[in-house]
């Protein structure tokens, strides 16, 4: 899986924070874009499809980075927002004939509202209690989606079958490739948005709340507002990812959005690096490919192999792929410095 390595090492470079590494980051970004655009023309279409899914998970994980890494709130329940996003898109397409492209912003907005509303009670909860409340949300979501109350729209336990859009303007690419590019474009746009949020006044407020809520309050930051906003924005990202996934899979069903997905996203967040937006891509690739790797090692013990891989990853990269990348880059740059004329 060469493409994985390429995008990973590239992610690593882009994850660097300091100013003097900016040119590295720039070159990394260019390289990443070149590779990312070229890939679908060299890979089998199901691999393109897998990469699309990985990018979709990465978008959802960016939502978690904003919530957990930047604002310090836990969530083990983002599968719920992922599901709401997917269902919003599916219901709009299926029941109201809305074009897929329009469902994406709607899904984002709907999830923002749900996230914001969920953020209100979550305000009162801290740490482990918040983790459990969100976990409860993840558990409850499939049940709610199945409920006969909404069956008319959601199709109940049967779910909704969707159609994948073809490439527009008669572009000579397959629908898999088109969805890949669409996801890539949306993902990049959202990643840039997320970075801008982090570097804005809002982002500094969110970080201040994470690091020292008392000081943040003293500085006049409205903690409640920012925390619920963080939940809303995080849900927005994850919801858009959900909507994309619904179309990529061409099917939404309650069983697609169980707490296993929430745990998967959480694992992706941690192995990528909680505070790094580019590292979300590593998280997405991990979520998608590591279970397959585990399965290829041993079918009967796939779960055990997955668990062992996970533990080893945590041992070797205690602050995620981003942390490891930073460490390596620091070493390399330090060497360069010593040699350099300065």
């Amino acid at each position, binding site marked *: 899986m060469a493409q994985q390595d390429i995008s990973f090492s590239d992610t690593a470079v882009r994850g660097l924070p300091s100013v003097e590494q900016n040119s590295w980051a720039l070159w990394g970004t260019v390289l990443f874009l070149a590779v990312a655009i070229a890939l679908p023309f060299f890979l*089998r279409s199901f691999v393109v*499809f897998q990469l699309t*899914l990985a990018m979709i998970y990465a978008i959802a994980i960016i939502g978690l980075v904003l919530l957990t890494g930047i604002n310090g709130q836990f969530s083990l329940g983002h599968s719920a927002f992922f599901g709401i996003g997917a269902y919003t898109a599916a219901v709009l397409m299926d029941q109201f004939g809305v074009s897929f492209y329009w469902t994406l912003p709607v899904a984002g907005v709907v999830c923002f509202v749900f996230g914001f509303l969920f953020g209100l009670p979550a305000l009162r909860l801290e740490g482990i209690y918040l983790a459990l409340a969100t976990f409860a949300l993840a558990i409850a979501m499939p*049940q709610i989606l199945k409920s006969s109350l909404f069956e008319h729209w959601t199709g*109940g*336990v*049967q779910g909704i079958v969707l159609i994948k859009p073809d490439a527009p303007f008669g572009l000579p690419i397959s629908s898999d490739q088109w969805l890949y590019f669409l996801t890539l474009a949306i993902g990049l746009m959202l990643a840039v948005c997320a970075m801008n949020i982090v570097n804005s006044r809002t982002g500094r407020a969110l970080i201040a709340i994470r690091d020292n809520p008392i000081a943040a309050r003293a500085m006049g930051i409205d903690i409640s507002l920012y925390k619920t906003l963080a939940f809303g924005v995080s849900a927005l990202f994850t919801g858009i990812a959900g909507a994309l996934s619904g179309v990529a899979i*061409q099917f939404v069903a309650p069983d*697609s959005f169980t707490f296993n997905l929430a745990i998967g996203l959480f694992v992706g967040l941690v192995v990528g690096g909680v505070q790094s937006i580019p590292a979300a891509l590593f998280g997405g690739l991990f979520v998608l490919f590591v279970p397959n790797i585990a*399965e290829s090692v041993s079918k009967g013990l796939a779960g055990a192999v997955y668990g062992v891989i996970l533990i080893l990853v945590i041992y070797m990269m205690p602050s995620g792929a981003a942390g490891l990348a930073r460490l390596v880059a620091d070493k390399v740059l330090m060497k360069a410095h010593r040699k350099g004329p300065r």
Partner: protein
Amino acid sequence: MSRRKWLWTTLTLGAALTVTPALAQKKYDPGASDTEIKIGNTNPYSGPASAYGLIGKTIGAYFNKVNAEGGINGRKVNYISYDDAYSPPKAVEQARKLVESDEVLLIFQPLGTPSNTAIQKYMNAKKVPQLFVATGATKWGDYKHFPWTMGWQPTYQSEGRIYAQFLLKSHPNSKVAILYQNDDYGKDYVKGLKDGLGDKAKSMIVAEAPYETSDPTVDSQIINLKASGADVFFNVTTPKFASQAIKKAAEIGWKPLHLLNNVSQSVGSVLKPAGLENAKGIYSSYYLKDATDPQWKNDPGQKEWTAFMDKYFPDGDKTSSFTVYGYTVAQTLAQVLKQCGDNLTRENVMKQAASLDLDLGMLLPGIKIKTSATDFYPIEQMKMQQFDGERWVPVGDVMSGAVGG
């Protein structure tokens, strides 16, 4: 008698095929060659539904047996089975991997209604057989819209109708309470029963209680059903919950006429854990032999199955109905591939799958696998049976609750 007939069919077919190759042109689609037939499968080997993974493993063991005995028409079967964790997105990913990367001839027995629904459109667009899916939803026999998809087991709805027929005939004035799993499987059963009862459904069904697979117990539901005053208990549950329900009903002294869906028919893995004395008198309907039922001890079909399990799947659980199921469905596919001869195109696979008339060792006597170009429901018959505290005793004739087909 049935076995002899089956042998005869196979022999004549075999004879016919050994003669024809010289004449017939060899035709292959991806996944087939002179030496090999690649078939794909997805099953939940991890996650909460991993119990079903046993079916996938049994199928693998069966094809080991086939290969050890020379393969099918001289070709080895290469059975590739992936884990879908009972998650539709994973199922799509794995199905695409099977078709596009492993290039299998067909996908066989993917498990679960959501997963199969997720891949159905893809499989039909790609014109790759999605054969003998492991779910009892009704939609798998829709040969007009999905000519590349075929079910296998009796549909949940037809089984529900069989119970309705049974009730209308022998207990027309009963009050029915239903416990069902809150998903497509449970709801299909309930629909089948309601459809079967027709106008009387409203008056006869007095209580319905769904449960989630995440419920630790179904105690609360059983208490509510008992409180409804029902005298018939329609138990639509998977093995673990079936055991719990049977045990709990006995513990609280509720003794209705008990109808148990065939998913949980196993004496060894359901009734025994629940307590055989608690299970006495339960009715159910069947199409496969229960390997743990002592009455089949000397049955040739059962003996063959036991020999297979001992030799090729010694770790497999013989008390589970899944091993019988996997064995029988694998036999069905083996027959289809045999019938295909040297014309191993996907089109011919579907054609042969739609012209089956089979009698297999672990099917109940009198029940056959039958398909045609307009009948994509291989098994449509079942038999009512009652548990006498030790074994299942047949009640009445073979029944059919055909839905859709």
